[in-house]
């Protein structure tokens, strides 16, 4: 009995010593996007006072847990509740004010009237269907004097995280230093605001719940066997790349720079190319897109067989959780397929 009690005490003290450290967890999971001090970057500025003053801890917890499907913010499902709470405490530490306490009661309003109000007051920033502002992060896609991109109100993660009371509070008081202004100050009544909340909540009926798995692309590459020699295939590829309005940057071996000149395998060749207009648009959508860059086709000759391979952009795009980027990847998949077809048939 005494021994059991001793083990119990040891476990309790061990637990206390190993309590999750919010600052360390934030640094390893959040800081790369949101900044070390929450000032924002690829992700939204979490330390913005008007943000922290208008969201409760449940919203932060659920946002970490569910993420924003298709809107870059990943779902951190593997974190324990204690770890999520520690991160929330760390974020909350940037605010000197008490945690907002919103009513858990559903807001009753006229969603049809809310829809009309949404069309006249919200669509410009949040989109016709509440899909949110375009782009990601500060680097390429928006001016630095705009601290936040209008959130996607129809996003399953948002709808799961935000209570009616929280949405209502934001509509009532707005968010200082962001384009979101108080709707009371704009002349809407409390009932109008309830109607808007009901309309925003109605977005939930048309979206999949957060965490639902989407279809997975299993083809990791786009590959074609060439009916030409290695040299002819390279020449064909150079022509096909230009005909797709891309600029050929360079042609070199896959091993270039990894070993001394002359030691490289001349039967593995990469053609790098780019369309800077396309690239610029893609970078505005997601600054992490460098992982696709530069566009390239690899040609190999093994046992007399010439193969042409590219990455499958659709396979990679799933890593980014960015539905806007998915559209670019579909276009790029088409370009790669056309180049391979032109060069190998």
């Amino acid at each position, binding site marked *: *009995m005494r021994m*059991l*009690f001793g083990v*119990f005490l040891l*476990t*309790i003290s061990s*637990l206390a010593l*190993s309590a999750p450290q919010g600052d360390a967890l934030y640094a390893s*999971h959040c*800081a*790369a*996007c949101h*900044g*070390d001090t929450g000032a924002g*970057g*690829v992700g939204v500025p979490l330390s913005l006072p008007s943000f922290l003053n208008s969201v409760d801890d449940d919203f932060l917890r659920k946002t970490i847990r569910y993420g924003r499907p298709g809107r870059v913010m*990943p779902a*951190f499902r*593997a*974190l*324990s509740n204690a770890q999520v709470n520690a991160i929330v405490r760390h974020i909350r530490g940037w605010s000197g004010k008490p945690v907002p306490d919103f009513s858990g009661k559903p807001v009753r309003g006229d969603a049809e009237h809310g829809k009309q109000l949404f069309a006249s007051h919200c669509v410009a920033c949040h989109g016709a269907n509440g899909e949110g502002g375009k782009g990601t*992060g*500060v*680097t*390429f896609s928006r001016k*630095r004097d705009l601290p936040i991109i209008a959130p996607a109100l129809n996003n399953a993660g948002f709808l799961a995280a935000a209570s009616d009371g929280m949405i209502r509070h934001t509509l009532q008081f707005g968010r200082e230093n962001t384009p979101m202004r108080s709707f009371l100050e704009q002349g809407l009544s409390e009932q109008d605001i309830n109607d808007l909340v009901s309309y925003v909540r109605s977005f939930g009926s048309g979206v999949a719940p957060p965490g639902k798995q989407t279809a997975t692309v299993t083809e*990791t*590459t786009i*590959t074609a066997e060439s009916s030409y020699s290695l040299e002819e295939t390279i020449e064909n590829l150079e022509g096909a790349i230009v005909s797709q309005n891309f600029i050929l*940057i360079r042609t070199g071996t*896959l*091993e*270039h*720079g*990894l*070993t001394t000149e002359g030691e490289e*395998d001349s039967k*593995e060749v990469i053609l790098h190319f*780019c369309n*800077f*207009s396309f*690239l*610029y648009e893609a*970078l505005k959508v997601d*600054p*992490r897109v*460098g*992982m696709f*860059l*530069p566009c*390239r086709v*690899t040609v*190999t000759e*093994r046992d007399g067989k010439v*193969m042409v*391979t590219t*990455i499958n952009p659709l396979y*990679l795009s799933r*890593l*980014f959780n960015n539905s806007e980027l998915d559209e670019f990847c579909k276009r790029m998949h088409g370009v790669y397929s056309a180049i391979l077809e032109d060069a190998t048939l």
Partner: protein
Amino acid sequence: MKRWLASIFLLCSLLHIPSLVYAEEIIMTRSVLAFPEAMLALQESITAHGYTVSRVQRIDVGLTGMGYKTDKYRVVFAGKIEEIRELTDKAPALTAYLPPKISIFAEGEQTVLVTINPQVYAEIAGDAIDPIIFTHWESDLRSIFHDVNVAR
């Protein structure tokens, strides 16, 4: 009493199980260093970990050359020749993804680094390759990113 204590002990023990390691597919870090210093720290750490920087693609230079306004943005390719040869030989699908690369771009006065978790390559390679190599790469990449993250 004994049963009650044993139950609490069991509960505490269960709570004490460390959470699963978060297997994110994109690895990112942020450096408080400006772009040139962060770039230098990155290349030094890559070399210190035994990898060769094979090429640096200057994305920003191409964009500005075409008239687009952009911040500093580079892609750094690195690898070990013997590993790259083994992988492309045994898993041809990987040739489209190799050598591994790290994107590095300025974000105001700071710098952000992004790369694909090498475990993604393991999925592409399938059974053709012992996945231990990708585990080593992931460990090295995290170490490299840590070096850049703490460099001052």
